[in-house]
């Protein structure tokens, strides 16, 4: 599988503060890649650097082999970005937002009309097209934003915290949309602090903390490395977690230590995250 995104030693500083600290990784074409980390870990800054919204301090970012610093306009043609905050123009209708976005990419009338029709049918947005942005709920606004970002047929789609602020139903509907897009061949890079989201959706996950990637692999491999089984028990009024590769080992540990109130369960990506970073995902920097 070829790499659609190659990031080499990417660093971004804001004054003295290092937001992204020399990270190196690549994303394969057609992959659904998750970027997981606590708030302020450097996820959004990385996406902003790759999508050219923020200038990088040092390092190299290639999108489809094109250097985003040296050939910004060329690189932007391959990318679609959906920001954390819904970035539709609220003074326009949904259709006008789509037309405007298509025009930014130089799409002519016939092409943009075809694409808008095709994508609004695909995302069941037809009835909302001529409504003002604020007439839509958060989930539908996100869908409209995804349509805007997909109009020019990008090879890579960045989704920055796409389900942040959505209720659980809207979140799951959006997961279906993301999966569908990925199945149609679009490479997706998703940043999230919802562990479940990363575990359900992503082929590979990069865990970022303090601007550095501390683990990168598929969720199942990361879980396997930590231990597939988790024993959760109370020791000195504190919850203690122990990880084991086999259920028998976990059971032996419980009986050897007389942990009658211990809970044995499968290890989750959240356990991996806590093990690696020492903090839970929602923690602020």
């Amino acid at each position: 599988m070829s790499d659609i995104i190659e990031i080499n030693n990417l660093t971004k500083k804001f004054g003295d503060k290092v937001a992204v600290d020399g990270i190196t990784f690549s994303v394969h074409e057609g992959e659904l890649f998750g970027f997981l980390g606590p708030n302020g870990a450097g996820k959004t800054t990385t996406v902003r650097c790759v999508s050219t919204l923020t200038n990088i301090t040092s390092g190299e970012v290639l999108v489809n082999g094109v250097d985003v610093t040296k050939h910004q306009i060329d690189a932007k043609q391959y990318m679609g970005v959906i920001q954390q905050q819904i970035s539709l123009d609220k003074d326009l209708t949904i259709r006008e937002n789509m037309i405007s976005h298509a025009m930014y990419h130089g799409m002519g009338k016939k092409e943009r009309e075809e694409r808008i029709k095709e994508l609004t049918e695909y995302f069941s947005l037809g009835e909302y097209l001529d409504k003002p942005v604020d007439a839509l709920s958060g989930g539908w606004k996100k869908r409209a934003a995804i349509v805007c970002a997909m109009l020019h047929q990008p090879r890579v789609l960045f989704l920055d915290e796409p389900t942040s602020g959505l209720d659980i139903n809207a979140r799951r509907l959006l997961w279906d949309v993301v999966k569908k897009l990925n199945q149609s061949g679009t490479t997706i890079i998703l940043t999230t602090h919802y562990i479940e989201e990363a575990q359900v959706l992503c082929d590979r996950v990069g865990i970022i903390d303090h601007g550095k990637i501390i683990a990168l692999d598929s969720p199942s491999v990361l879980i396997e490395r930590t231990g597939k089984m988790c024993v959760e028990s109370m020791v000195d009024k504190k919850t203690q977690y122990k990880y084991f590769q086999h259920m028998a080992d976990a059971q032996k540990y419980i009986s050897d230590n007389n942990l009658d109130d211990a809970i044995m369960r499968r290890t989750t990506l959240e356990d991996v995250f806590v093990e690696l970073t020492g903090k839970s995902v929602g923690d602020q920097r």
Partner: protein
Amino acid sequence: MSETVYKRNTGFFHQVYHVAWSDLMFMRHNFLNILIMTVMSPLLYLIAFGYGLRTGETSIGVSYIAFVIPGIVSLSSLTSSFASTSTRVNVQRLYYKSFDEMMMCPLNISAIVLGKSMLGLVRGLLGCFLMYALGLFLAPDLQLTPLAVICICLSCMVFSMLGLLAAMLAKSHQSMATFNSLIILPMTFLCGTFFSVDDLDTVFQVILYCLPLTYSSSCIRAACLPDVIDFPWWCLAAMIVFAIVFFLINHYLLKTRKI
């Protein structure tokens, strides 16, 4: 998904139009409100300063109303062009985040600067020419000259780009208001709109000649009263310099993402 390959319109002027399109749509949706806002304040200035405060003849030999209308036209270019560009970009950048969205698209930065200035230019021209038309009716000394049209267009463009600059530097809605109070409001009253800058002390003249509206009102007044005032070509040159400087600063801010 569609497989047809279409040619993309990525020429420079296409891009300028594409950037301006959403703002022009916004103007179309709000045309009546914009028209009222554009016309109301110059009309009030005309009534208050043109009729309420002074009448009679000026030192250059024309009625005060003929003197003040070109000043109000240049004032319209400032208020309408600056306010419409700065408010819209400020909202798009800080609240809607749709400015970021545009910045992630494959657009030439010069096309973004010019495209984002188009709303201010169009609205400024609307306000200026309505006031100009009213002036031609009220003051027979005023003339419609090609030079006046050029000066008005240039003035609207200068103030629209100043609006873009202010909106890109603004960290909040409040900082826009501060910019208005410190720069725009003094320009409104002092830069040769209601009285000649030449009547002031040299110190004030030096300060006022640092501000673009002084040049704009000098050029527009001279172009509207060609039989009375010699056209100050150096003021037109200064206006062009302001336009180039504002363009370059906007370009720099966008290129370096210092916004």
